[in-house]
């Protein structure tokens, strides 16, 4: 029997807080992290965003770097989240020789480039920040602060980056190339993509309303989240109890448009089908779907149609982007950690700001948090621009021995 992929640690930083405990607390209390734009000097002060409410200075203290260290915000968020995961997994004492680090990001150190761009042109005072701009450099910088890695790479597939990092990590474990892998993503808000999404006219003027008939678009967010994954055999050897397992995954091209999803959700149906096939589960086994649910007219319709097509009876579904905002490249991991927290603590997270059902769909999302609700499997959808569709299925850990 194939060795199962187990999650032994996880960490998360987002608009909801700086770790799993703060995240769980806000989810249960239905307290969204979406609010005003802070720390970023943008003209779009009126647009709501899901900021991590910790300035760079404080982040540096938390991760233990000197205040004078030249380091990007995306890197700081990444280190904080990855460390939480590593500590929970007791990875440092595991004695592993080959650990991998796979991270999804698009902006890298861009927020510093924006801040110091004019300086770069006119003086040399902040040139050290130039080398941080690169996505790959950002991943390497996070890795450098965590330890020595056998393998380290960056995935950049827009909003499905972190989910694809999880897939690659799982594949490498299955091939026996690594003893353990830290997978996820990190992204901070930048003026560049705030302006960019604004020019695509897909930002909601208020907090996003996923799956609502009157949804107005995306609320951007920032954050980082990582999982530590290893095979069940390794978990047994070092006697660590898994939090859950990654039982299936699938990825597909939508091949419709650079930024819009197909009306029939073809790519989404394919990725969900592949994940189900790998897991050996039926659609009826899925107890919860954490949707990509960005709140745009296009995504929620396309994803909704795909889900309705595949699931005869749509399970409880919500988009927690209504809590954190859309953390873009980190979303696949941020929302996976949120869902694992929910599965472990037996509750269903709400889809905030929902009031009116979409007439094209035959389901509504979860309106308020449902406590004391046990489920064994959840599906996480993560769809990126470029038509990159990824679906992951996680299951409660049940010892087969």
């Amino acid at each position: 029997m194939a060795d199962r992929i187990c999650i032994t640690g996880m960490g998360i930083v987002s608009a909801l807080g700086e770790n799993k405990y703060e995240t769980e607390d806000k989810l249960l209390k239905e307290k969204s992290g979406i609010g005003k734009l802070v720390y970023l000097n943008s003209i779009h002060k009126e647009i709501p965003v899901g900021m991590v409410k910790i300035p760079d200075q404080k982040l540096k203290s938390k991760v233990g770097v000197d205040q004078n260290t030249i380091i990007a915000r995306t890197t700081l968020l990444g280190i904080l989240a990855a460390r939480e995961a590593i500590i929970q997994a007791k990875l440092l004492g595991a004695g592993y020789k080959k650990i991998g680090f796979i991270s999804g990001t698009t902006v890298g150190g861009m927020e510093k480039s924006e801040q110091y761009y004019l300086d770069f042109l006119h003086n040399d005072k902040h040139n050290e920040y130039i080398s941080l701009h690169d996505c790959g450099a950002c991943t390497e910088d996070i890795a450098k602060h965590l330890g020595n890695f056998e393998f380290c790479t960056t995935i950049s597939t827009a909003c499905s980056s972190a989910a694809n990092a999880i897939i690659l990590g799982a594949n490498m474990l299955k091939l026996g190339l690594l003893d353990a892998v830290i997978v996820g993503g990190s992204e901070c808000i930048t003026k560049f993509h705030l302006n960019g999404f604004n020019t695509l006219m897909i930002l909601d003027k208020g907090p996003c309303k996923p799956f609502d008939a009157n949804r107005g678009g995306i609320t951007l967010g920032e954050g980082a989240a990582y999982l530590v994954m290893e095979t069940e055999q390794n978990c047994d050897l070092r006697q660590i109890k898994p939090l859950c397992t990654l039982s299936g995954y699938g990825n597909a091209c939508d091949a419709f448009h650079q930024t819009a999803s197909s009306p029939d959700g073809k790519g989404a149906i394919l990725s969900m089908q592949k994940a189900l096939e790998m897991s050996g589960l039926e659609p009826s086994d899925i107890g919860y779907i954490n949707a990509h649910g960005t709140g745009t007219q296009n995504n929620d319709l396309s994803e909704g149609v795909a889900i309705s097509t595949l699931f005869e009876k749509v399970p409880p579904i919500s988009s927690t982007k209504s809590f954190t905002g859309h953390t873009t490249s980190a979303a696949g991991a941020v929302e996976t950690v949120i869902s694992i927290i929910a599965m472990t603590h037996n509750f269903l997270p709400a889809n905030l700001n929902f009031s009116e059902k979409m007439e094209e769909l035959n389901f509504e999302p979860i309106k308020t948090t449902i406590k004391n609700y046990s489920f064994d499997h959840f599906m996480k959808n993560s769809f990126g621009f470029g038509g990159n569709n990824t679906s992951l299925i996680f299951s409660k850990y049940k010892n087969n021995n």
Partner: protein
Amino acid sequence: MKDGVVLFESTNKTDANLFLKEIYKFLELNYLKFFKMDHLSKLGFLAAEFLLKEMPKENLEFMNIYLACSSSSLDSDIEYQKTIRDKESYFPSPSVFVYTLPNIVIGEIAIRFGIHGNNSMFIIPPYQKDEFLKTPNHFFQDTTINPQLSGYLDYLGDHYKAEFILKY
């Protein structure tokens, strides 16, 4: 070059954009969406065109595409930044913003050939190019026997490169 044979050589040695247009004409393409793409996407699109144009459609539908680049979408990022850097002339361009993601090139190839397989874009330093291209298909866990398009490409200013391999 394909399989070590030079298929097309330009007399123009300086203008990358013109070079890409010449290849488009050489391939006798009639695909107007090409002209809306950014440089990285044009480069990847043309490289894929050379390899895939003769393949039967059924073989392409579930082909996997795994590409890597080094500069990400920096070439387009710079173009986009030009549209937002002046407070007095602040006109962010939506069509340029679309291409400030390195994986859009995969989307363009998928749209062109109707490909729905697995896909991912990696950011790697240039020295890892050969290692990436040699990575066997099963690294990316293709449990069924589908062809795979692997490639390394990069475009920044006047420097560009694309090396694609079709693996069965």
